[in-house]
Structure formats: structure tokens, C-alpha cells
């Protein structure tokens, strides 16, 4: 399992079509997995659990995922603007942001 900690393994090109790397593939697998999870949760608890959270907007589970992901993108961009790399701290902030959105928004 050493290769998981090998930056080279993650970032080397995988062929030329669409210029894939394992890192970007992992990103899309994460997004796809998040959407699939939403589908599975919806199947188990139908209705989307709508509610009006602390921002006074109506959200369903899917909306909350969307807000989490979009917000995370801007958290990373904001961090790059103010502090630059590395991005471990904004990752932590994004996780907190995600938890906050799913619990209260």
C-alpha cells in the first residue's frame, strides 16, 4: 500500500485522452460517490428531508450537498488567494463547513 503515499503514483499521466491522472480520477470518483450516496439515502429515506435551516432557505439533502461542494470550492480558492499552498487547513475547514451545512442549513 506504499504507493498510496507516493505522489508520483497519483500524478503521473494515464494515457493522453482527456489527460487523466489518478488524482483527478479520485476527485471525480469522490463526487460520483457523494451523488450515489445521496441516491441510496433517498432510497432508504424518501422525500429528501426538506427543511428551512438557519439561512432561512429551503433545502433538501441534495441541496445541502451542492452547497457543501460549491462552498468548499470557494474555501479552497479563498485560501489560495490569502495563504497559498499547502491546502490541508482549508480541507479541514471544508469538512467543518460540510458538517455545518448538513446539520444546520
Amino acid at each position: 500500500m506504499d504507493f498510496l503515499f507516493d505522489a508520483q503514483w497519483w500524478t503521473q499521466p494515464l494515457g493522453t485522452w482527456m489527460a487523466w491522472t489518478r488524482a483527478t480520477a479520485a476527485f471525480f470518483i469522490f463526487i460520483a460517490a457523494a451523488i450515489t450516496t445521496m441516491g441510496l439515502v433517498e432510497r432508504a429515506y424518501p422525500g429528501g428531508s426538506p427543511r428551512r435551516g438557519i439561512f432561512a432557505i429551503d433545502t433538501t439533502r441534495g441541496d445541502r450537498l451542492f452547497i457543501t461542494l460549491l462552498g468548499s470550492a470557494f474555501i479552497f480558492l479563498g485560501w489560495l488567494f490569502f495563504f497559498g499552498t499547502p491546502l490541508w487547513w482549508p480541507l479541514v475547514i471544508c469538512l467543518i463547513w460540510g458538517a455545518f451545512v448538513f446539520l444546520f442549513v
Partner: protein
Amino acid sequence: MNKPVNQKAWFFVLPVLLLVAFNAIVPLMTVVNYSVQETFGNNEFFWSGVIWFEELMRNPRFHDSLGRQFTFTLTILAIEIPLGVIIALAMPRKGIWVSVCLVLMALPLLIPWNVVGAMWNIFALPEIGLLGKTLNTLGFDYNYTRQTGAAWFTLITMDVWHWTSLVVLLSYAGLVSIPDAYYQAARIDGASPWAIFRYIQLPKMKRVLTIAILLRFMDSFNIYTEPLVLTGGGPGNSTTLLSIDLAKKALGEFDLGPAAAMSLIYFLVILLTSWIFYTLMMRNEEQ
């Protein structure tokens, strides 16, 4: 009652899904892949991490074109939406003039974008163009190829001329759908024209106006052809909007990595703004 469940219908969606996959999803994913790599052509890529995003977020050239883009979009929205509503209110509701007005309004929308740019380019030329020559004869020092203010004036006037019609047509559709009973009730109550507009027409137009604002926001934020043909982004960089800057980077300088990063930030800004706007409009809708 048990409804019959037939999942076969999903197969009919497959062709569209394939089409969307190849014209939207695959390119978008490719852009994400490009945005973290560097290429020197020859379809060879080298990992560069988030360096393009970091560079862009701190790049004054990007800030400037983003600022110009917002200035442009907010200005045209501030002009086109009220103007479109006013024109729609002034249009006849019955009789032969309805069709005439609708056709006249639809005409600018039918003209291809590059033709609009070329038309205004010639129309505004200071030596031979009707607009440019007239303004100069009247004593205004007007030359959109040299003056930033004149270039912006021409650009915004062109967009207003081209797209206000869309707002007019949508608002008009909203207006004619209001039943007469509302107006009768207003007359009985002795409501002023302003009160009729504020409490009957405006609320009834809200949905179409939401669509109009969203469409105009997204379209004007993506505008490329018209300013490119009209001013080419000049004088200097003064009308280089985001998309022109992006095309310069991607096609002119062939910097695929930075251009991809820029596209993604561009995409995120549009997504965020549209989402905020839509959420706000829909929240008021329910209250």
C-alpha cells in the same frame, strides 16, 4: 391504488444522456484534468498541482477582467430590466399593433451575434459611421477605437439594443397572462397606475422576470462574440471581458493549464451567482 411501474422509459433518455456526456460532461472533466497540469503541446502533460489556481487568484490581469465583467453585466442588467419592463407596459394588448410590436421587438434577437458586432462596429466609426459621425458633428469627441469611455458606451448601447427585446418579450408574456378581473378590482378600489404596477403587475411578472434576469446574467457573463468584433477588447485592455481574456490565454497563448483553471473559476462564479439569485427569488416566492 397500485400504479404500474415501468422503468423501460429510462432507456429513451439514454441517447440524450450520451449526447450530454460527450458535449458537456467529458469536456468539463477534461478541463478539470488540464487545470492541474502543464502541457507544451504534443499531447504531453506534466503535473503542476494547484499552481495555476494560486497564480490566477493573485493575478491582477484576472482581477481586472473579472471586475470588467461584473461591471458590464451589472450595468446592462440595471438598464435592460427596467427598460424592458417599461417597454412591455407601453405595448398594446389588443389589436393589429400587437403583432407589429412583437415582430419589431423580436428582430434584434434574430441577428447573429457577430453580425451585431460588425453592424455596430461600422455604425459607430467616427469618420463614416452614422452614430460616430453624428456624435462628432454635434461636438462630442467620440472615438471608440481610442477612448475607453466611448468604447464602453458603445458596448453597452449595443448590448441594450440587442437584448432588451428578450426582457420585453418575457415581461409582455407575463403581463398578458394577468386576468382582467385584477384590473377591474383595482379600478373599483380606485388604485393609482403606480399601485396597479406595484401590487398587480410586478408580482405577476416575477417568475418571468426571474428567468429574464437569470438568462441575461448568464448570457452577458459569457458574452464573447459581440465585444470581440466591436472592439477586440480594446482600446488597450479596457473592454477585455473575462471570456475574451480566456480565449486569448487558451487559443492565443496556448496556455491550456492556466486557461482551464480560469474556466473553472469562471464556471464557479456563474454557478454561485445564479444559485444565490435563484434561491433568493424563489424564497420570496413562497412567502
